[in-house]
């Protein structure tokens, strides 16, 4: 099944046998495309003695370490086709990943992100409050993951409003007006896990203030590292968010700049879900063999979206565990998993823990 056709299928509804078949076919094709069009990728596969014609299982798809995107310009299309270069938002001095996107790749990212998000919020556009500052999207020449996320999310909303000023202060007047304007409507919110925590939750708590929204769907992403350091887990996080914002359904999602679009959303039961377009394999660090369900190890992520750069199969530096497949009580099909955090001692990646004090 070709990607265009695949994109028509409803998210989280296909069972594993059907999904495996479609994914495998598409991932093999992508491996071949990148092999032929990305010299660096080809050299790696040659050293690994990969015979693409012999790939029979998703586990056989070769994977490249995510750090390579920091040190090399990996792309499979001519420079003239590249319309966007995405970067991870590293802190000063850190190397950032550079992801080269052409039109088709960008379009597919947008489509797939939309199909995943609308499977949760429905097809209608909702009033959108972005829990960030408008500053992050000002520099359009180099997209950082944070700015791109904001822009990407904006398509699901209307009357888009930014909750923070340029100085990362809550713009109370603006937010209050937004509440007044959208009484009795479902509100969509989006922001970065840490930014929400630092500049919304803690700030409101400190000043003994809160907003009273009736009905919010909040999506957040970006990683827990800094928040974990404050010994706050997801349950606590959600409780405190609800405490300052009102009636909120909180959806955390996991995504990497290397595989934008095919994000992994955490369901109501706290499980991260693979969408139709993505898959996860857990590998043990001893020999990179895949481990059985329930065992922890390094996370390998697969996505059928990357066509302009060889990012369809990457080995991350995160640890995780697969909890099940097709049988989550939330009803979504596909593998579901838990992320346990970055492996110890590895290079510190700052995908979107973006706000650093200088």
């Amino acid at each position, binding site marked *: 099944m070709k990607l265009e056709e695949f994109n028509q299928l409803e998210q989280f509804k296909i069972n594993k046998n059907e999904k495996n078949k479609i994914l495998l076919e598409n991932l093999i094709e992508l491996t071949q495309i990148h092999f032929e069009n990305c010299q660096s990728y080809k050299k790696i596969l040659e050293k690994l003695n990969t015979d693409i014609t012999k790939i029979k299982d998703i586990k056989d798809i070769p994977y490249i*370490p995510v*750090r*390579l995107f920091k040190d*090399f310009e990996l792309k499979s299309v001519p420079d003239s086709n590249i319309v966007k270069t995405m970067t991870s938002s590293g802190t000063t001095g850190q190397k950032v990943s550079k992801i080269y996107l052409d039109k088709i790749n960008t379009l597919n990212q947008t489509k797939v992100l939309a199909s995943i998000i609308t499977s949760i919020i429905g097809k209608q556009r909702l009033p959108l409050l972005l829990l960030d500052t408008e500053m992050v999207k000002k520099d359009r020449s180099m997209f950082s993951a944070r700015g791109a996320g904001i822009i990407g999310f904006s398509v699901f909303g209307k009357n888009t409003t930014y909750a923070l000023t340029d100085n990362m202060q809550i713009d109370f007047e603006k937010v209050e007006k937004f509440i007044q304007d959208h009484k009795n409507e479902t509100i969509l919110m989006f922001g970065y896990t840490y930014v929400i925590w630092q500049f919304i939750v803690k700030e409101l708590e400190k000043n003994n203030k809160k907003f009273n929204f009736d009905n919010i769907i909040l999506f957040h992403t970006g990683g827990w590292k800094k928040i974990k350091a404050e010994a706050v887990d997801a349950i606590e996080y959600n409780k405190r968010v609800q405490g300052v914002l009102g009636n909120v359904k909180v959806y955390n999602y996991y995504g990497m700049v290397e595989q934008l679009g095919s994000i992994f959303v955490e369901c109501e039961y706290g499980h991260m879900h693979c969408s139709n377009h993505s898959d996860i394999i857990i590998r043990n660090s001893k020999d*990179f063999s895949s481990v059985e369900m329930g065992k922890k190890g*390094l996370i390998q992520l697969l996505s059928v979206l990357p066509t302009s750069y060889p990012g369809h199969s990457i080995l991350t*530096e995160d640890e995780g565990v697969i909890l099940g497949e097709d049988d989550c009580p939330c009803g979504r099909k596909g593998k579901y998993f838990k992320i346990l955090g970055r492996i110890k*001692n590895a290079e510190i990646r700052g995908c979107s823990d973006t706000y650093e004090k200088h």
Partner: protein
Amino acid sequence: MQKLEDVVILMKNINYIIGSNNIETSALEPFSDCVCDFLAELSSDLMKSTVIRQYPDLSAIAFWARTANIKKMKENYIQNNRIGRGLCFHIAPSNIPINAIFSYIFSLLAGNANIVRLSSKDFPQVNIISNLIKEILVKYPDIEARTAFIKYERDDEISAYFSQCSDCRMIWGGDKTISIFKKYETKPRCVDITFPDRYSVCIINANAILNTTDDKLIRLAENFYNDTYLMDQNACSSPQLIYWLNDNKEARTKFWNFVMTYANQKYILQDAIAVDKYTKMCEDSILYDNLGEITIDTNLLYRAEIKKLNENIANLRGKGGYFYEYSLKETREFYNIVDEKYQTITYYGIDPEIIKEDIKRYHLKGIDRIVPIGQAMNIDIVWDGHNLINELSREISIQ
């Protein structure tokens, strides 16, 4: 010179693990009795303690500083016309933390007072031995007055201040650290001993592997492990490249199997190292067309075959069990790529005398040590091409 109040402000940012800013800077004679006694006590206390089983680098110190070894060195060193230079400032490395202590001991034996800047990272074995030294020093006031172990976050002013006071400096930590410290003003007569980034290789005679017993190969594998895996190949003296003389596939397989067997029992492969090795393999594939096949035995051992010898080879650095290999037709085949970066050759089944003579005959700029496999890490008073006792002391001539 700096004004006193400036210095006082500076000192607030320095953590004195041992000693104080009031350090005695006058020199002693090399191998003075109090220093030898102090080292004997340090060694025997370490030997008695149970922690050395946990930290092989501490047992290396205990073994090196044992009475018999110090006595032997002192006897070999009968010279009564030398005295230390005065104050030595040590900038310790963070790749091999224990070298801070060796650096201190060598300079102490040469007769100097010492300020040792420890790495700002915390290493348990360095903490243990620092505490022990502090305890023992109480009984040796002459050395105690001449010793300071300090920690401070990178700070130009503090580093510049100590550099200005020093009569000699031991600068570890590689090229970057050296270039930073060279910028500070020192006394015109200050002697710097620098330990830049170096490169080390191993030469194995394949015939010798085939002609020896399994028992000996087990020991060889253990020795090779100690040179490499033990410190994740982080040391400059740890070999990156294995040169095979009289190359033979069976010998290679045999050798690596023994190494793998030993490493399998001993080595704890960290997740991050596994990812680093795989990443390194991908980077190598992209960057070096000069590499042939890369053999991966689980994630414990990566071996990349080098097609052709050239100067770039010294840039190929593995870690945690990632080696490069090349089949040598004769020993001197690699001499024309030897530059001043080459430090240690570890060997098996060859005569080190031949290489030593060749270094002179072919005017090689590098290779400071030629030692059997297993001794790559054995630091000593002659290190990196320097006789540290001589260079850290001065000679008085009389006529």
